[in-house]
């Protein structure tokens, strides 16, 4: 699914040793669109920024399984259940591609998972919202995955090779996710009035949190410039957000749903939709741990990790026994 946190406070500042001829050669390579690979020299701040961004992205994929997992046992048909299981499995896969990419920068999986479970690491704010109805699964696929694709396609050209390669795999798979979500919305909007009302209700609840997924407004995101210069980030938050609004509005019209924003209107002069002000205080509240489900999500991850401990231990013990037998 997705990341957004690259502009959050505490972004890594330039570190000692990050200047000099090596740094100039590095920047020159980035400028000519060459890729940086794990064993190449890189500024420490570049490394730290990537570890943070890639691991937050990985955590988001892992936590992103929870809102959807909520509906696996209650999907309306066997076909929908099979599709949802496949989607949730993809999210786990995406998490793994990304953890692997982060590990090429010299951090261990254990450290990264530890940061998530201790609450130190952030993940996308969107997964702290609840999924009370089946229409939420539709809205997540259509809107959340749609926003994710919008954000992730430029990262396929990120200067760091392993991240870019992971992103290419992920983007290919996300497009299934978005279409399955739209398919759910379409079925509900063509269904009974009650079903259509559920779809509208889900849109009402997800619209604004989805716009927040693109991160703070450009005028408030002071750290973007460095990420842009390093080609970790290629398109600004506001540009991506505008693009998302522009492509999504006609889709909402087609569904016969109303986007919950009275300020929304086509601006022929700009060639874009104008839209209302985002409630940034809500965004920061959720990012800083006080969203509707932050505590529950983290507790679920911690429980899953603890309850899986005996499985990991048993697998280790079995492998050791096999090795001992083979050696004997």
């Amino acid at each position, binding site marked *: 699914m997705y990341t957004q946190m690259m502009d959050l406070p505490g972004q890594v500042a330039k570190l000692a040793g990050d200047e000099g001829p090596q740094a100039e050669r590095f920047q020159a390579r980035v400028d000519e669109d060459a890729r940086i690979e794990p064993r190449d020299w890189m500024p420490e701040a570049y490394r730290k920024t990537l570890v943070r961004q890639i691991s937050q992205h990985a955590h988001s994929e892992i936590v992103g399984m929870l809102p959807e997992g909520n509906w696996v046992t209650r999907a309306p048909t066997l076909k929908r259940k099979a599709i949802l299981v496949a989607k949730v499995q993809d999210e786990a896969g995406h998490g793994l591609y990304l953890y692997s990419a982060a590990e090429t920068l010299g951090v261990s999986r254990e450290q990264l998972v530890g940061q998530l479970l201790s609450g130190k690491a952030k993940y996308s704010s969107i997964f702290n919202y609840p999924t009370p109805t089946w229409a939420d699964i539709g809205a997540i696929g259509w809107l959340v995955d749609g926003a994710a694709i919008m954000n992730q396609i430029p990262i396929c050209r990120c200067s760091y090779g392993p991240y870019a*390669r992971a992103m290419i795999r992920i983007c290919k798979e996300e497009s299934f996710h978005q279409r399955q979500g739209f398919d759910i919305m379409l079925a509900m909007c063509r269904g009974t009035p009650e079903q259509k009302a559920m779809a509208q209700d889900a849109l009402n609840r997800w619209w604004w949190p989805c716009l927040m997924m693109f991160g703070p407004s450009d005028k408030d995101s002071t750290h973007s410039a460095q990420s842009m210069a390093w080609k970790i980030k290629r398109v600004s938050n506001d540009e991506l957000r505008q693009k998302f609004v522009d492509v999504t509005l006609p889709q909402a019209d087609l569904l016969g749903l109303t986007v919950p924003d009275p300020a929304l209107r086509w601006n022929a002069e700009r060639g874009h939709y104008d839209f209302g002000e985002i409630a940034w205080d809500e965004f920061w509240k959720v990012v800083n741990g006080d969203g509707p489900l932050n505590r529950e999500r983290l507790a679920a991850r911690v429980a899953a990790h603890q309850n899986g401990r005996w499985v990991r231990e048993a697998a280790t013990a079995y492998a050791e026994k096999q090795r001992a037998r083979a050696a004997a």
Partner: protein
Amino acid sequence: MSEKEWPLWEVFIRSKQGLDHKHCGSLHAVDAEMAVRMARDVYTRRNEGVSIWVVPSNAIAASDPNDREAFVEPMADKIYRHPTFYELPDEVKHM
């Protein structure tokens, strides 16, 4: 029992018979058998491959990127190794 991190494996996939195995990523597993099984779930959910290799990451020896100049660049000035270096008379066909 204290938890020890499972070793890291590099995964190589042959997308179809007749093609090379190609590196596609890595994962943690207790042993080779589990690494192959997990690679199947992580890297071939959509028919991406017909064959999987896994190699312990620490078994890979690699060239040093800092040696790039000495290691790679001498190859660049030996253009006579390429057939396009040689000019042929127009009359010569099929060569």
